[in-house]
């Protein structure tokens, strides 16, 4: 036993912030102080509060340090490790009160960790640590005490639903897979986490890989599959490495292979990596990608549970869904179903990002309100700005506003409001964001990621994008909004797969809640949030201008002229709105004004080519 356990968060956020350099510094200084044998350094997966990164915890006290730099290491070693005096200045403070341990930090208080139970607590490359936390007990219990049907019934009773977006009941999916008889069945773990702003699957695979594999084994046993595939995005090299390593270790001790735990159940899995196609998150597209083809979806039915990978019954489960399983079997279906509200049971992991103080990975019970999620767990909006909207569900989801903040988060409530659970990306936006521009951003994403197979998605989204492009560049016209709504609804109805069926949501939901912003863009040729460059103009306040000529010299298109006496003027027709003048002005005399300048207004009337 070592005297001290030092847990350093090596999730992606903290690694990018330098946690590995800090770890090396610790090793160096511990050796210098002859403490190496007393302190156990453990690299853990994501602890959650990425914005505080690099973060670390010191046990046995459980002291939580944030924003540690390489220069702080010496103080931690000499003060804390040698003299037993935790370094207060590196702890979290809230309202001037010191929060020494994790439990005291508001970020953690409303969280309930189920899927993320071990994430940030154990070394993700050590199977022994996983076993020490009760690892593989669930699969042991399932294999030795339960029939396949009993295994499926537990998940049905728990009310677990797919965590990847759609929210299909997991037990039902398994039942279909089980009922379809075949000589070979497959289980696939969908780790093609493509939603921008979502990183929960990545953190789970990197932080607790054994748990996901154990979950997959339970699912495989339930449906009768002997072979599994992890389909992981190529953008997540560490996740791929960790899963492969974990499987190797398990094979060595017989946890993967023939007759696991002496039962009749044999199972092994392999990793397939994605190659950068968002649509591959759709299960039929994913299956085709594993088959080595273009990842294009095919119509359902036949559902994969009937005819999936290589035409055999296949169940595709998301990473987080699988990560919930071990806890359900260890603690019981009733325990799981006691969390959440209505038909949404258990907990959900969210990736909290954007203009919110505590960005990071959080797990909260279903049914928590958006207000609690953003203002309690998330700590509110950064830089004292005002909350404007929250975007849920990525490119398939929608934006919600202030008045929806007290809505409990469930699959149904979000759908009703025009958003969706999606994989759990929560992007908080303050009042400097232009909602029209944000909707255009998501639409651009969907246009590029559309696989091109079905017409409504391939061409319909492009049409919508053209209109959005017009609106944000000052060429919007009466009737554009109605046309967007019409197109959006048609695309939703007629598209083949989930991508097309949900892609218009960001536009439709922003029209629903921020129609006045669309109107301002179209009728007043003005972007109230001052984001769309075509719909703003720069102007020099002559009462402030000191005539230093800096702006004129820095202007890349030479559109600023003047002299010391007459001050300087921007020639609007030539201005490309790069903002250089504003950046360099020593007296802040350059104003950004919403709306087109009257000189430019006449120059951009829609031409025939631009009309959609």
């Amino acid at each position, binding site marked *: 036993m070592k005297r001290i356990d030092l847990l350093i968060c090596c999730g*992606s*956020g903290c*690694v*990018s*912030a330098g946690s590995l350099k800090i770890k090396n510094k610790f090793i160096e200084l511990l050796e210098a102080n002859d403490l190496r044998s007393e302190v156990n350094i453990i690299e853990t997966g994501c602890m959650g509060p*990425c*914005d505080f*990164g690099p973060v670390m915890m010191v046990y046995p006290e459980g002291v939580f340090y944030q924003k540690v730099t390489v220069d702080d290491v010496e103080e931690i070693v000499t003060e804390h490790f040698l003299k037993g005096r935790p370094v207060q200045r590196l702890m979290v403070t809230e309202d001037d009160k010191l929060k020494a341990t994790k439990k005291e930090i508001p970020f953690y208080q409303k969280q309930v960790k189920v899927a993320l139970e071990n994430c940030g607590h154990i070394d993700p490359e050590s199977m022994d640590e996983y076993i020490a936390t009760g690892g593989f007990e669930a699969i042991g219990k399932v294999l030795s005490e339960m029939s396949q049907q009993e295994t499926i019934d537990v998940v049905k009773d728990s009310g677990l639903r797919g965590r990847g977006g759609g929210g299909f009941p997991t037990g039902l999916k398994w039942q279909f897979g089980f009922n379809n008889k075949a000589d070979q069945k497959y289980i696939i773990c969908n780790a093609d*986490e*493509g*939603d*921008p*702003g*979502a*990183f929960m699957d*990545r*953190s789970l695979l990197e932080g607790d890989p054994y748990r996901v594999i154990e979950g997959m084994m339970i699912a495989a046993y339930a449906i009768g599959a002997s072979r599994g595939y992890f389909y992981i995005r*190529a*953008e*997540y*090299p560490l996740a791929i490495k960790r899963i492969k390593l974990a499987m190797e270790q398990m094979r060595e001790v017989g946890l993967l292979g023939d007759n696991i735990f002496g039962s009749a159940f044999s199972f092994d899995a*392999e990793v*397939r*990596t*994605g*190659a*950068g*196609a*968002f649509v591959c998150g759709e299960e039929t597209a994913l299956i085709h*990608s*594993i*088959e*080595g*083809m*273009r*990842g*294009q979806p095919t119509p359902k039915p036949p559902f994969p549970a009937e005819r999936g990978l*290589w035409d055999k019954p296949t169940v595709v489960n998301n990473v987080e869904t699988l990560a919930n399983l071990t806890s359900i079997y260890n603690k019981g279906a009733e325990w799981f179903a006691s969390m959440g509200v209505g038909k949404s049971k258990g907990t959900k992991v969210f*990736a909290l*990002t*954007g*203009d919110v103080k505590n*960005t*990071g990975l959080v797990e909260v019970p279903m049914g928590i309100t958006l207000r609690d999620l953003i203002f309690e767990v998330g700590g509110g909006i950064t830089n004292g700005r005002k909350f404007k909207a929250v*975007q849920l569900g*990525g490119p398939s989801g929608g934006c919600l506003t202030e008045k929806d903040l007290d809505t409990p988060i469930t699959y149904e409530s979000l759908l009703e409001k025009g958003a969706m659970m999606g994989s759990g*990306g929560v*992007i908080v*936006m303050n009042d400097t*964001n232009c909602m029209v521009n*944000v909707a255009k*951003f*998501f639409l651009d*994403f969907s246009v590029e*990621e559309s*696989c091109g197979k079905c017409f409504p998605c391939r061409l319909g989204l492009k049409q919508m994008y053209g209109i959005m492009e017009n609106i944000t560049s000052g060429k919007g016209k009466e009737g554009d909004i109605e046309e967007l709504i019409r197109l959006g609804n048609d695309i939703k109805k007629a598209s083949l797969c989930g991508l097309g069926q949900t892609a218009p949501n960001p536009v439709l939901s922003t029209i629903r809640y921020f129609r006045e912003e669309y109107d301002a863009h179209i009728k007043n040729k003005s972007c109230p949030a001052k984001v769309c460059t075509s719909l703003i103009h720069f102007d020099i306040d002559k009462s402030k201008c000191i005539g230093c000529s800096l702006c004129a010299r820095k202007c890349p298109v030479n559109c600023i002229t003047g002299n010391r006496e007459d001050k300087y003027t921007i020639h609007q027709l030539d201005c490309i709105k790069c903002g250089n003048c504003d950046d360099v002005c020593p007296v802040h005399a350059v104003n950004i004004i919403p709306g087109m300048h009257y000189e430019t207004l006449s120059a951009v009337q829609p031409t025939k080519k631009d009309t959609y």
Partner: protein
Amino acid sequence: MSQIANYDNQMYKELKEIISEKKKIRNPLIEVLREAQAIFGYLPIEVQQFISSELDVPLNKIYGVVTFYNFFSMKPRGKYVINVCTGTACYVKGAPRIIQMISEELGIEMGETTKDGQFTLSAVRCVGACSLAPVFVIGEETYGRIETKAQVVDILNQYH
């Protein structure tokens, strides 16, 4: 280009070995293409033809797969590929500005490679480092919380 056209060279030998190894798994095309891109840096049509004959898969199918996935490129790429994250969090926090700054500094547009073959400017969909937004990635290094052009210049200079 002559190297690419010459099937005797070392790179093809390496690829051939990998293909015979990968043939053991079912439908290895995407895995083979990934390895091939690692060897050649990109996937010119000659390489695709080679894979076609080795794997006994029609060239049109290979071409279809190569052009479908963002990960594969048929154009030579720079020694360092600068991947600017354009996920939502980064976008909201200023990814377009980063792209503009890099583009100005290197004199290339999105998707292009510098004349000296050092850098390619590319965009990726979310690297999952949202809390550090806005970020860009070069190789395995992630650079986060980029706010000024001076930061960008400093980082790029490390690679010259």
